[in-house]
C-alpha cells in the first residue's frame, strides 16, 4: 500500500524542507577512521570497538552483521556521539569531511536527527508512552525545519501515510500503546524520516517483528532509500535480512571488522573463518535434521580479549601467528577486505 504512495509523497516533501543534498561521487558521505570506543577507567578499560574504519557512499546500504556483543550497536552509537557520556571515543567520524567526534554538542545537535537519523531495535521502549504519536513527530519537525504549525501537521500526516499507516490523519492523536509492534516501528521510521535524513542508522529495525511485517518494513526502508537517495547503515544479526537489503556487508567480531565487501562476495565467497562459520550455521539448503555447523566456543568477553586475533581461540584455521599478532583489515581480491592471516574459502578442507 505504501509503495504506490511513496514516490509522490517523497517529492513533495523534498521541496518543502531540504535545500542542498550531498551528491559528491568522489567523497564518501560518511568516513569512519580508526574509531575505538572504550568504557571504564585506565585500570579496567573495556574496549568495545577497536580501530574500526569504513565508509558509506551516498545512497548505499551497508549491513553491519555479527553476534550480540560484537560491537555493532556501539559502532552506530559512537557515530552519533551517543556513547560519549559513558565512554571514551577515539578516532575520526568524518561526516561530509567534518569530524563529528570533536564537535561540540551544540553542533552535533544540528546533525543528529536532521542529517543523520537513527531507529532503534525496540519500538516498544523507544517511543515516549506519555506523548501522542503526532507530538513526537512534530518535535522533530519543529527542531529541524522552519515549517509553520499547520504545515508541520500536514507533513506529519504525510509521513505517517508514507510509512504505510492507514487513516494517518486520525491516528496523530493516538498514543504509542494503541499501535501494534509493526506499526510502532513504522512510527519510529516516520519520526526518523521527518527531517529527510541523508543517512539512516537502523539498529536491528526488524528483530522484534514477525517475518511478514519484517518484509514490509524492509521493503519500506529499501524504497525510501531508493527514492530519497538516503544511505543506510543496517545493523542486523540475521544474514537473510542483510542479504536481501544491503549493497555491502561488514562482518564484526569482538569489536573489530573482520571482513568487508559487496554482499554477493561476502555471502558466496567469504574468506574470514568467522564469516564462513556464521554462514554455515544458518540452516538453509542443508539436509533436514542433520547436524548444524556450529562454531565451537563462545565470543571473548571484553575484559579478557586475546592478544592476537580475537577469533583465534575458536578458529579452525588458526596458526601460531594468529595467537601473537593481531591481523589488520587488508585488501583481499578485487573488492573485499579481510582481517586474517590465513584466509579460507567456504569449501576449504581446514574448516571442518
Amino acid at each position, binding site marked *: 500500500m505504501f509503495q504506490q504512495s511513496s514516490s509522490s509523497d517523497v517529492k513533495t516533501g523534498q521541496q518543502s524542507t531540504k535545500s542542498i543534498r550531498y551528491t559528491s561521487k568522489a567523497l564518501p558521505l560518511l568516513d569512519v577512521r580508526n574509531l575505538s570506543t572504550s568504557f571504564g577507567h585506565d585500570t579496567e578499560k573495556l574496549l568495545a570497538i577497536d580501530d574500526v574504519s569504513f565508509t558509506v557512499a551516498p545512497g548505499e546500504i551497508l549491513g553491519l552483521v555479527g553476534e550480540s556483543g560484537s560491537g555493532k550497536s556501539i559502532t552506530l552509537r559512537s557515530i552519533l556521539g551517543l556513547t560519549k557520556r559513558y565512554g571514551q571515543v577515539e578516532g575520526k567520524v568524518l561526516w561530509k569531511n567534518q569530524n563529528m567526534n570533536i564537535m561540540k554538542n551544540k553542533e552535533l545537535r544540528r546533525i543528529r536527527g536532521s542529517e543523520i537519523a537513527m531507529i532503534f531495535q525496540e519500538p516498544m521502549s523507544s517511543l515516549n508512552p506519555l506523548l501522542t504519536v503526532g507530538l513526537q513527530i512534530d518535535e522533530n519537525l519543529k527542531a529541524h525545519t522552519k515549517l509553520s504549525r499547520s504545515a508541520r501537521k500536514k507533513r506529519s500526516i504525510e509521513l505517517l501515510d508514507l510509512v504505510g499507516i492507514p487513516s494517518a490523519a486520525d491516528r496523530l492523536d493516538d498514543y504509542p500503546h494503541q499501535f501494534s509492534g509493526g506499526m510502532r516501528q513504522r512510527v519510529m521510521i516516520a519520526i526518523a524520516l521527518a527531517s529527510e535524513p541523508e543517512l539512516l542508522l537502523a539498529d536491528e529495525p526488524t528483530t522484534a517483528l514477525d*517475518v511478514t511485517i519484517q*518484509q*514490509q518494513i524492509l521493503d519500506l526502508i529499501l524504497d525510501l532509500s531508493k527514492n530519497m537517495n538516503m544511505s543506510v547503515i543496517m545493523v542486523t544479526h540475521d544474514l537473510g535480512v542483510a542479504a*536481501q537489503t544491503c549493497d555491502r556487508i561488514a562482518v564484526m567480531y569482538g569489536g573489530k571488522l573482520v571482513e568487508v565487501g559487496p554482499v554477493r562476495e561476502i555471502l558466496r565467497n567469504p574468506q574470514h573463518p568467522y564469516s564462513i562459520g556464521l554462514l554455515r*550455521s*544458518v*540452516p538453509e539448503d542443508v539436509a*533436514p535434521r542433520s*547436524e548444524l555447523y556450529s562454531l565451537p566456543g563462545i565470543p571473548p568477553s571484553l575484559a579478557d580479549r586475546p592478544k592476537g586475533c580475537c577469533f583465534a581461540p575458536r578458529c579452525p584455521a588458526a596458526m601460531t601467528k594468529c595467537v601473537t599478532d593481531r591481523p589488520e583489515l587488508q585488501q583481499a581480491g578485487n573488492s573485499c577486505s579481510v582481517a586474517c592471516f590465513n584466509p579460507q574459502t567456504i569449501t576449504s578442507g581446514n574448516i571442518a
Partner: protein
Amino acid sequence: MTENTSLLHVTNLSHQFKIDPSIFDVILRRPSRYVKVLNGIDLNLARGETLGVVGESGCGKSTLARCLVGLYPLQNGEILFNNQNVSHKTRAEQRDYNRRVQMMFQDPYSSLNPRMTVGQVLHEALSVHKMRSETEIPERINELLDLVSLPRDAADKLPHQFSGGQRQRIAIARALSVEPEILIADELVSALDVSVQAQVVNLLLDLQERLGLTILFVAHDLRLVRHVSHRVAVIYLGSIVEIGSSDSLFANPIHPYSRALLNAAPSIDPDKKNTTAPLTGELPSPLNIPSGCAFHGRCPHATEICKKSKPELKALDGHGEIACHHAKELALS
C-alpha cells in the same frame, strides 16, 4: 495416521480469555468481551516425531503450547494422551501427565529462578516427582549435566553466571530430569545468536534420537522449523490453516497464508528475491475474528464463499491437510 499410534491426540481445542471490564463497561452494562485465542485445533503427535508450529505473533502458538502442558485449564475440547483423556484424570494421574509432558520456555533470562543454583533447580524437579531417592539425586544431577554438555561444577552456580545458550541447556536438563515423553519447546532458541542456536538445536536433535522424545517445536524462525521438524502446522488466528510434512509444505505450500508466510523468510542468497507479493495489513484482532475464513481480508484469492463459511481442514493428494475453499485450484496453479 490412526489414533493408536499417536501419543497425543488433540480434538477441537479452543481457548479464550475474558477481558476485565472497565468501569464504563460495568456502568453501561456492556456484555463481557473475550479474546478468542484458539479456535478448534485438531492435532496428532506421533511418538518420536517433531511437529513444528509456525505463525505470526498473537496467532496462539504459545497458548497452544501452554494448554497442552496444562498451564491453562482446559476450557473446550479434548486432549488424549496415550488414548486417555487428560481432563478426566485424578490428581495423581494429572501429576503423572505433568511429568511426562514437559515445557521449555522462550526467555532464558526470566524462566530460571535467579536465587536457586542449577543443582537446586534440578534437585527440586527430581524430588518433587520422586524420580530418584535422596541419595541418588547428586549422581543423577551429574548425569543430566553431562547429557546437555555442561561442566559438572555448573551445579553450584546461579543462573546469572551462565550465557543465554547455557541457560537454555539448563532448561533442557530440567525438563529432561523427570524423564518426559513429550517436550514442548516454546521458542526455545529465539533469544540466541545463530551459532549458539545451532549448538542448542544440535543438542535437541541428538537427545531426541537417543531418548526417543516427541517434540512440539514452536518457533517463528521458519528456516529452523524446517530444519528440525518432521511435520509442520501453520496457525492463523488460532486455527490450523495447513499441516503437512515439512518437505512438501515448505517446497509447495498451498494455503495463501502459508505461501505468504513461508516466502517472507529472507533467503541468504541475495539473488533469490521473494517473488510473491508481501501480505498487506496485519493480523486482525482476536477480539473480533472475521467471519468465514479468518484470512479472507488479507487473501488475494478470496471470493464470496470465503466471507461466509469457515473452511475445514481437508486432506489434499500429494499435500498435507489444508483449510481453504480454493485449495484444489491453488494446488494446480
